[in-house]
């Protein structure tokens, strides 16, 4: 049979229950499942067809902690063995003393001099159990406490678009706004600029990426947007963008 049995086009927005392909030619991947003769969507998102594999890039949803992710977390509590950290997900994480610093910490020492309740930190998830118990570490390049910045939250599936291919999007924004920006995989973004105006443009730009993350030609749109704000926006790593993962 010559007729294609794909029911959708690449990059279509699809919804749960939608039949994506008929027959056995296509294989279900992330966000899809097979039922009898059909490949069906099991989440709202952008359908991607890669050869014979169909998967869905989510457009919304809360963060699910993954090993190796660098996130921006907030210290929620201090206990005997270390710090409890909010991860902007359904699960709190643990930062133990030995993973927090290479300093020798004496028994009963005041831990707030390292991290206090309410502090934001950029940290790395180094272990996630099957029950989603999470261990964090501060040992690694760039992992540190964040001071006097502005925090904003975005839907975590939009994070790859905000970062861009090899960090191209975020570095374009950094240059255009003179802001320091850290985008946590958990959707928490830390912004620090020289003045409120720079930070506000950064916030606006990131919101725009979040709203239009599924639109093709996003980099160009953002470049124009920054220019409309009187900022010079240059994309350095010039590669044709594709949707989704970074």
């Amino acid at each position, binding site marked *: 049979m010559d007729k294609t049995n794909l029911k959708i086009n690449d990059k279509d927005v699809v919804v749960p229950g939608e039949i994506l392909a008929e027959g056995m030619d296509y294989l279900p991947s992330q966000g899809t*499942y097979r039922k009898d003769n059909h490949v069906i969507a099991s989440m709202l*998102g952008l359908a991607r067809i890669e050869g014979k594999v169909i998967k869905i890039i*989510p457009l919304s949803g809360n963060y699910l902690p993954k090993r190796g992710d660098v996130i921006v977390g907030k210290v929620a509590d201090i206990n005997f063995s270390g710090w409890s950290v909010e991860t902007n997900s359904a699960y709190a994480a643990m930062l133990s003393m030995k993973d927090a610093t290479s300093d020798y910490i004496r028994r009963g020492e005041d831990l707030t001099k390292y991290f206090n309740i309410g502090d934001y930190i950029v940290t790395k998830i180094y272990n996630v159990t099957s029950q989603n118990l999470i261990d964090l570490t501060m040992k690694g390049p760039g992992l540190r406490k964040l001071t006097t910045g502005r925090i904003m939250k975005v839907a975590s599936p939009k994070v790859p678009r905000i970062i861009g291919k090899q960090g191209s999007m975020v570095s374009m924004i950094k240059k255009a706004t003179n802001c320091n920006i850290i985008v946590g995989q958990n959707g928490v973004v830390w912004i620090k600029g020289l003045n409120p105006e720079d930070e506000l443009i950064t916030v606006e730009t990131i919101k725009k990426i979040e709203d239009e993350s599924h639109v093709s030609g996003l980099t160009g749109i953002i470049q124009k947007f920054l220019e409309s704000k009187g900022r010079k926006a240059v994309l350095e790593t010039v590669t044709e963008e594709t949707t989704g993962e970074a």
Partner: protein
Amino acid sequence: MVYKKRLDGRKFDELREIEAKVGVIQNATGSAYFRIGKTVAYAAVYGPRELYPRFMQDPKKGLLRCNYNMLPFSGSGERVRPGPSRRSREISLVTDKALLPVVDLEQFPNSVVDVFIELPQTDAGSRCAGICAASMALADAGIIMKDLVGAVSAGVVDGQVVLDLNYDEEAYEEGDVADIPVAYIPSLDKFSLLQMDGKVKKEDLVKALEMAKKGAMHIIEVQKKALKSKFEVSRK
């Protein structure tokens, strides 16, 4: 058979007018608005998020927790007293069961997905409208779902099988009335909500279910369109 023409002039298998919108509550992870006739439902989904009290946590999967609530001014009669009632708690329970078969929360053990359903205006069919709003809101929240859920009631008014009863039909006094709210899951071809008030012959029940199925399929098409159009707006 006396009920030859419906009180509002609809065909026997005709739904009331439907309006659906997604992303109406900014604070929520996912949200939706669903209106059928004069019944209006909002749904907001929060989560997966941390679940307390701890004893409610399930180490195998996340918990779906639905809460159905009529706003105090949503009934055409007396003011509805705020807070949960026996009725609203039962509807919350069956709403939960109606949605559970499609929702997959295995990736989120010990967590909860809260679904809040609020009705500012009702004219029969409010639990079904709530389920429809919740179905869209869950999808909007990026929850893994096998399918969307379509809910509508069918019933028998004075011997005639009809779809989507309004309040006047539920209260029809010149003959027996049966009201059968159902929720239908197309990919499974199964019903996940089934209740009934009144009296009905088995043959009529089968006819009513058949009619409700078609109605639910149409409602799901409306849900799909609403979910997709959220992204078409900014796509220009």
